[in-house]
């Protein structure tokens, strides 16, 4: 089983970079004046974040295309304990490796490491 698959695309993740964030809830749990906890939360939605290893621009574009416009996509893999979640994936940033000079004074970008956020729909 791949460590992480998004919309059917295997997404290689940097070792140690994938983590689960504080879940989002509907409602609030708040303390009353006398400090009584008034529990009022439900609808837990899980959230994860991680960074890919440097991947080819074509692979990065394929992933961008799959998750663009807030698309709801299937996320699964060992990172999610083998469970499948419908997720909204946001590419928060990309680190470019500028790589090889192109001979015209510029550089050819040949890989990108994407930082992703996965939010359960």
């Amino acid at each position, binding site marked *: 089983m791949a460590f992480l698959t998004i919309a059917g695309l295997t997404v290689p993740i940097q070792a140690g970079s994938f983590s689960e964030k504080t879940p989002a809830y509907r409602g609030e749990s708040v303390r009353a004046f006398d400090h009584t906890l008034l529990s*009022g939360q439900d609808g837990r939605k899980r959230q994860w974040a991680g960074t890919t290893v440097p991947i080819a621009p074509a692979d990065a574009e394929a992933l961008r295309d799959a998750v663009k*416009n807030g698309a709801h996509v299937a996320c699964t893999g060992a990172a999610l304990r083998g469970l499948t979640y419908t997720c909204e994936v946001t590419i928060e940033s990309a680190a470019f490796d500028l790589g090889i000079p192109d001979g015209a*004074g510029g550089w050819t970008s040949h890989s990108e490491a994407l930082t992703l956020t996965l939010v359960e729909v």
Partner: protein
Amino acid sequence: MPRAFTTAEFDRWTSGKFVTHLDVLIERVSGGVTVMQSYRDFGGVIWIRSARLTPASVDTIIGSGSLTLHRQVGDQSLAPLIKASSLNQDGGVYAPALDFGREIEFRVALTEPGVDPAASDWKVLFQGVTDDPEWPNKVGPVTVPFRDRAGPLSDTYIRSKRTYGSEAGVDAFTVMQQIVDDAMGAGQYVLDDRTSGARFNVTDFPVEGISVWEALEKLALQWGGKRLGQEWNETAGEFRIAVNEPDRNKSLADYTAGPNTYLEIHQISTGGKNLRNIIRGTYLNSSTSKKESVQIPAEADVDTDPSVQKYGPRFFGLTEDASKGIDTATEMTAMVQAIYDDLSVPIIPQEPETKLCWFAQVDDLVTWGANALLYDEAQDAAVLGLTHDFPEPGVGRTRWRVAGKPKGAYRSWLQRAVDIAGLNAIALDDASYTISELDVTSETDTQVTLGWAIGAAVDEVWYAVRTFAMPYTRDYWADVKANVTPLADGVTTLVVAKPAEDHVTLVQVEARRIDPASGELTARVWRKIVYAKDAQAPVIELDDSETATIGTQWLRIQERGIAVTKVEAQTQIGTQAAGAKAAPTRGLGAASTVRGGTLATGEYEQDVTLDQTRFSWITFFLTLETGEMQVVGPFGFDRNKEPDLLQVEVSGKKIKTLADSDGKSLKAYRTDVASTDAAYWEKSVDGKSYTFDVPVPDAERWAVRVCAYSDPVANVTSSTPQDCEDVTVAGPTASTEPVWTVIDAAPPANLDDIMSYTLQADSAPTGYTAEVYERHDTGSGMTGYTKIASLAAPPTTETTYTYDTNWLRNDSGSKLVQYEIKAEILNGSGVVVETQSAQASWYHGTTLG
């Protein structure tokens, strides 16, 4: 009385263990008929983001609020002018989902966590009519303001004179219903009569040129100060406009909220400041045509009045002119009695906050349980007003304004007083109590349009527009403040003409509110300065110096009418994140590193630690009194000692040149003739900034190279580090070779990565083409040029092109990117005959577009 609730519903609220579900329904056309559309599920999407509403209360007689909706989800948009959105269509015909004047209804359900609401769980919390939806900004929600059903009554004017009543007298409530039926249509509004005291017969009540709501208010006032407002009708299952008379003697609390239910008590005080126990009303008697007075207690009874005995004499006087409708002793006596009842006992105002309480209503008498910290005995206090807040999904809060016993009015009594102290007290920061900062929504050469949003709890908006001769001084504001007048209800824009040259126009807009609990008049003031068309921006002069480890930028600001209110600087060392904006390193009175001596008024210096291999940067940010920010810089310091040309711009026969701090001298010289040729030309100057005046004769074109050197002119050798750039300079009516007459580069809009550049050539002979290149620096030095466009012919009209840079502009970002756009014109043989460049730079975050 509160709305009907079951024991289970009350227990759930007091336990606080629930999730608040909100649904908002707004009238729209569907299938050719009017339906109430749920925004909890519209096209499969939950559109509701947040909401705040304030039902009608003791002193805010028209309930209002604001609903915030997502503007766009996928291809669906609620922006009313996006006609292609499926939400704005009905059977293929344009029918915007949102508009003004639509019925709106709020429903809430409180359920245990994890339990979806059943149909019986939903409670109608508010009913009203939408005002103008707003959907500004590229990225932003749709905001729908609304008022309760009294809103249309206050918007509808009685244009033709009508007279109500009869010689025998017609019951006031009957007259009220007649007025509403005549103006709004029979059956459109069913009023509720909740009065319990004496009736009031109307004999002669002419109305003309006032709103329906004002006519109802007049009658309510004559009827002994009855209260008007929208209230829930349990039997009808809807909200109706009611004429109410509070049970001022209520002593049995309707329900109890303990400290394990309320979250906080936001305000509490003894409230004696506004206690009044001698009330005198003066009116014009319609029978005698004389001014007469009514006083409670009568002078003879003042000394024995219980309130006077306990708290001392606290006088309150008011005058009602005949236009308000009080013109008999009976009417004034009823009004004075109502005021005495409402103001003669201290009210102990409180503002508790709880999780959402849907059943609470004005006049409910609530026992607020003791809490040991603020009061150690339970306090009974009546509800004067409520605000329901829904800041995020599942969360609902109610903020209560409570005090003393039920009242007919409170702050509106205080507003009538002609001799009451304690007004004009404080300013409030809560957005609902004020208006938003004034924005320039549009501007022309002759006028500026200012706009703002009004908080739900604002009672009135006042304004003043005054023009003065320059120079502007802050003393002018005293005159502005003395000339404020009220704006009509609901006005949110102001068109201000630009003043004549050498004049300035000052605009002040105030949000005013009288707190119903304390009676204090509070105001929040916003100001704007409008200048003449050619506003006098400050002049900036620059200089710099550097050591092996520190770069210093010197800045002198010379004001020319528009004051600079704040100067900040920001630095970035190499590729590190930029630092926070802060006051410059040195200012007035400090020793100048760059120029020696002492820094004078308007002079500043900023230091930056130099990265030893990359650029370090300094940028100044000047905040002008107009509220605008002027960015000066960024200025690069390059510790590799290699000079870099930051700017080479050809304009006519001039070359404007700017090098970085490593540039100690500049030189321009012809490259199209040998240095031994009689026509050879060159010019060298010390410094890093200079505008060369090239002596190119008319009808000739010179190829000129501009170089920056890291040594002064006297020390430049062939081994001196340099940076050069080639340009073409053409004399007027030069050869037939085309030249760029316009070249400009502009950064992307904030949160976008698409920059633009604009080109225009003076001609485009057959066979001539153009090519555009970019190079950029993100802190690691300039890249080489990359071709970004090939044009079949140079444009001969001003044409703007875009280029996706992949560097998202983020004005809150921390790193700088600089782009240079170089445009070339090539003849039919592919030889470059014209080259010019333009630059643009911006901050970016870490997100790629």
